[in-house]
């Protein structure tokens, strides 16, 4: 009999306690984010959809080679100073957001943006074309780029580490130029 009344007391008191907890939430600001109207502020290093700034890109192919899933498609035509990029595309069906391309881009053109809501109706539309083939082609060689007025990565940044090691400046000056040439030819 004592157990019977203890049970009733426990049921009533725990129900009142529970209802007290839920009523507190009525006055609390809801945690819901009204998604299309309000958006979460992403952390600075959030890996969203990759953005490639076509005015900076010099089609060096490093990103396409590094990509573990081969989702970056770069097409170019011509040799040496004549070399022109005709296509730059990223296939988001394949992309794993590993960020290897952005970390190793020597011009800093390819970056991780904070966009994440790119849902589509057809997965073929997930291949993002960054160039319109009808527009002017993008020059790849450094000399052509400066000639045509495209953005070129400043030389100073490469020279800076040079004075620190030692005196032989002419030896270090030459290799970057040759490296650039080799990279463009391949």
């Amino acid at each position: 009999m004592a157990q019977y009344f203890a049970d009733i007391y426990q049921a009533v008191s725990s129900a009142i306690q529970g209802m007290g907890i839920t009523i507190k939430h009525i006055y609390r600001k809801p945690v819901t984010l009204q998604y299309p109207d309000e958006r979460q502020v992403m952390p600075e290093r959030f890996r969203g959809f990759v953005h490639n700034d076509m005015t900076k890109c010099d089609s060096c192919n490093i990103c396409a080679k590094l990509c573990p899933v081969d989702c970056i498609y770069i097409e170019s035509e011509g040799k040496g100073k004549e070399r022109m990029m005709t296509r730059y595309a990223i296939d988001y069906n394949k992309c794993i957001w590993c960020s290897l391309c952005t970390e190793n881009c020597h011009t800093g053109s390819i970056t991780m943006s904070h966009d994440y809501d790119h849902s589509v109706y057809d997965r073929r539309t997930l291949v993002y074309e960054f160039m319109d083939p009808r527009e002017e082609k993008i020059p790849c060689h450094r000399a052509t780029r400066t000639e045509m007025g495209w953005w070129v990565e400043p030389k100073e940044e490469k020279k800076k580490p040079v004075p620190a090691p030692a005196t032989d400046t002419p030896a270090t000056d030459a290799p970057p130029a040759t490296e650039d040439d080799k990279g463009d030819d391949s």
Partner: protein
Amino acid sequence: MEAMYTFFMDKAGMGELGAHITVAAIMASLMFIVMALCAIIFTWMERKVAGFLQSRYGPMRTGRWHGWAQAVADMLKILGKEDIIPAEADKGLFVFAPLLVLLGSLLAWAAIPWAPDFVAADLDLGLFYIFAVSSLVVIGILMAGWASNNKWSLYGAARGAAQMVSYEIPLALAAIPVVMYTGSLNTQDIVIAQQGGIWNWFFLRNPFLFVAFIMYFIASIAETNRGPFDMPETESELVSGYHTEYTGMRFAFFFLAEYANLFLVSMIAVMIFLGGWWSPIPGLDFAPALTFIIKGVIMVFMNMWVRWTLPRVRVDQLMHLCWKVMIPITLICVIGAGLWMMASGAAS
């Protein structure tokens, strides 16, 4: 009401029978419209209350302000749905069951006193009549479950019938002390007996009546098949209980009846315990119908609050609670209230 009769008899030149039929038709359609409005408003309210109790918003996008048009959109959607009757179902019963559920609820609405002179059917046995017709709902639910020819429906219907038949006993027993105090089953008399501010409302008259009020509240939750006593519907074990096989308009009838019943039991609670259309402060009774509806909505909110707080009980716990806890307590309340009346000299 008298004014309406005299208007139709004297001004419109109808006979006594014609006036009665006209008034009855007007009141019935008015009650039905209010009931449909209730279902629409309370579905929206239920979702908003559920949302805010869980620190979220609930519907926000339909309509401009807080998704107010969500329930309207849902109703329109449900009207446009295909009406499916299962091949193996008992067609006659299947079609009739939702109507019976709705009927049981609508009949009980007739005896609700909305305002001093406004009650659809001013019956001398009003309270008894309400409890009697609202048990039609049980038959409707059992019919729906049986006619669906589906194991989940039948389980739900059997549970629903067992639960509702059991909980009608504490429900009616909890109302008996009030009837003892009033000396009448007439709904208007019960309300009039609570005149004179909140201290004269029956739930604060004496401790036994207060306990009876709590018992009535718990039994009314079970009676409307809402959580934590939503055994007939238990969406996690039975698919949806007795209305699993229903679609479109027929499902809407069940839905309508559920919310009509919810408001009905809340209004009965207001009527017999919370002073009906009397305002809490004496002398402020300028809008009795509004006072009555506001109190009813507060009781509906209490129901929702309980539903979204407490977890569902088991079937055996449900029956234990009814037969071994609530019926003894309500019986003690009846006896205690009687003794209190004798001691205070209220009994004549």
